[in-house]
């Protein structure tokens, strides 16, 4: 009943008091947390930056201009683009069903969405081999029609998409559930068609959840290695993605090139995620002010 905000939220420490011990404990906790994050996260990130700088500008230039590296980046971009497009569209459709529909088995579908979280990427690759390999369920039939899935782009997109399935759905469903259907119903009573309602009411509500889902799926697609390694055959200059290039470079003891490509991949993913996060924060702030 008082205008004063609760102490725990406003002041630095939840409780006042001149206790020296409390200050010491607080300092120790902060130091421990920073040390943990520092050793675990920052030091390795510093390590790779240091290594690339150490390797020198020449290595950076020669690596990034090598044809197979360029091809690898291009392939990663293509796979990421296709996977993000597919999982975003299907993710929204699935999220709408999960949030708005009800039928027997809906909860099972809901649980199935999380399965990719429980599967090792290696296992995902193996599953694709079991389906599309020369002795797999569909492999022989498809091969008879001249369609090659394994060791080619389709299987690489499929396994990456499998892994990216939950991201958009898990970002969008809570927003749909929290926002309810009143606005959509209001739009329907005003004569809007289902598509118009979706386009003008639902999509704007989902904008930031979608952006975040897209960023997460993109980061995951860029970084995927285990599944792609198994299904692609990692054929240099053909089915080798950027992460597969790093893997090969590490195996072949070409660390310089591996470090350069790794740093590029990390930079792109980090920029993607922090960029979306920053945009969302700014958006939230603008809305608070308005």
């Amino acid at each position, binding site marked *: 009943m008082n205008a004063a905000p609760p*102490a*725990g*939220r406003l002041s*630095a420490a*939840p*409780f006042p008091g001149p206790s020296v011990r409390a200050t010491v404990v607080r300092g120790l*906790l*902060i130091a421990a*947390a*920073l040390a*943990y*994050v520092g050793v*675990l*996260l920052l*030091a*390795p*990130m510093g*390590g*790779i930056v240091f*290594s690339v700088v150490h390797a020198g500008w020449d290595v950076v230039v020669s690596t990034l201009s090598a044809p197979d590296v360029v091809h690898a980046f291009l392939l990663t971009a293509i796979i990421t683009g296709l996977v993000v497009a597919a999982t975003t569209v299907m993710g929204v459709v*699935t999220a709408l*069903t999960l949030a*708005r529909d009800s039928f027997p088995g809906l909860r099972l*579908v809901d649980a199935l*969405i*999380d399965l990719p*979280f*429980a599967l*090792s*990427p*290696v*296992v995902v690759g*193996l*599953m694709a081999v*079991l*389906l599309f390999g020369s002795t797999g369920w569909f492999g022989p039939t498809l091969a008879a029609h001249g369609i090659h899935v394994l060791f080619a782009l389709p299987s690489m997109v499929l396994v990456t*998409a*499998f892994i990216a*399935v939950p991201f958009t759905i898990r970002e969008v469903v809570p927003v749909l559930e929290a926002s309810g259907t009143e606005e959509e*119903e209001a739009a*329907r*009573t005003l*004569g809007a068609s289902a598509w118009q309602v979706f386009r003008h009411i639902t999509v704007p509500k989902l904008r930031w959840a979608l952006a975040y889902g897209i960023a997460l799926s993109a*980061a995951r697609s*860029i*970084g*995927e*290695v*285990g599944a792609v390694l198994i299904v692609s055959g990692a054929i240099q200059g053909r089915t080798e993605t950027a992460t597969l290039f*790093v*893997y090969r470079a*590490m195996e072949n003891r070409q660390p310089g090139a*591996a*470090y350069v490509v790794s740093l590029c*991949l990390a930079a792109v*993913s*980090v920029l993607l*995620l*922090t960029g979306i*996060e920053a945009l969302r924060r700014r958006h939230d702030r603008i809305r608070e002010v308005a």
Partner: protein
Amino acid sequence: MAQADTGYRAAQLRRPDLGPPLRRLTVLAYVGAMIVLPVAALVHEGFAAGLTSLRNALAYPGAIAALELTFTSAAIVAAVGAVFGTLVAWVLVRYRLPGRAVLATLIDLPFAIPTLVTGVMLVTLYGPSSPLGAWLDRLGIQVVFTPIGIGMALCFVTLPFVVRTVMPVLQDLDPAEEEAARVLGASPARIFLQVVLPHLRPAVTAGALLAFARSIGEFGAVVVVAGNIAGHTLTAPVYIFQLTGQFRFAEAAAVSALLFLVSLCVILTTNHAVARWGNRR
């Protein structure tokens, strides 16, 4: 109100909405083809011959050790993550540090950084060619190509899980409960253990279980750091990768199904823990 209602119903009658049934079929087809079918293939391949494939797979030298290494390292990583994740969440929520926003963003980076790159980073930092690695080597500490490196890689990859599940719970805690304990004479340590921690426990458990499940399956971060020496640093996912490379699909599928089953149980338990926490509030 009533008029709007009948108007809406009339509109529905005029244009029967085909959206939901169609959408339902699409979703069922999507989930069926993308998720159910591959998992079915996996389980079928692994257990078509009963437990023979699994027995064969485990008979290879280093197979049992790989499973042991995977499960123990995942358990240790989950425990470390639970403790330090809670600590980091506490510091982020309760203390007004300069640079708090930067720290909060850092926590999310493992979601963005490719896992393989995580492994490469650890090699650049602790590998034999780095100054730090050479120095540690002289002290008799080896990180790369040892279980320590595996543990560090997994801790890196799973750092956000506990922090991100605990932070919102900490933010929503009613400070009055802690104040009540304080007024009754409780020490800060007791308040944390008896008043705060019980509220955090489901979130910490959920975060740690997710970290465990993720650690079991992690490949990219581990494969370059571990060295993959059978019986020493070979983990189960890398073992599955090797089996696949040797076209021993049935054995690979059997081990995969085993890992999958464990992860699945863990994730279902997690959902249960979260739901129970939701009811308790």
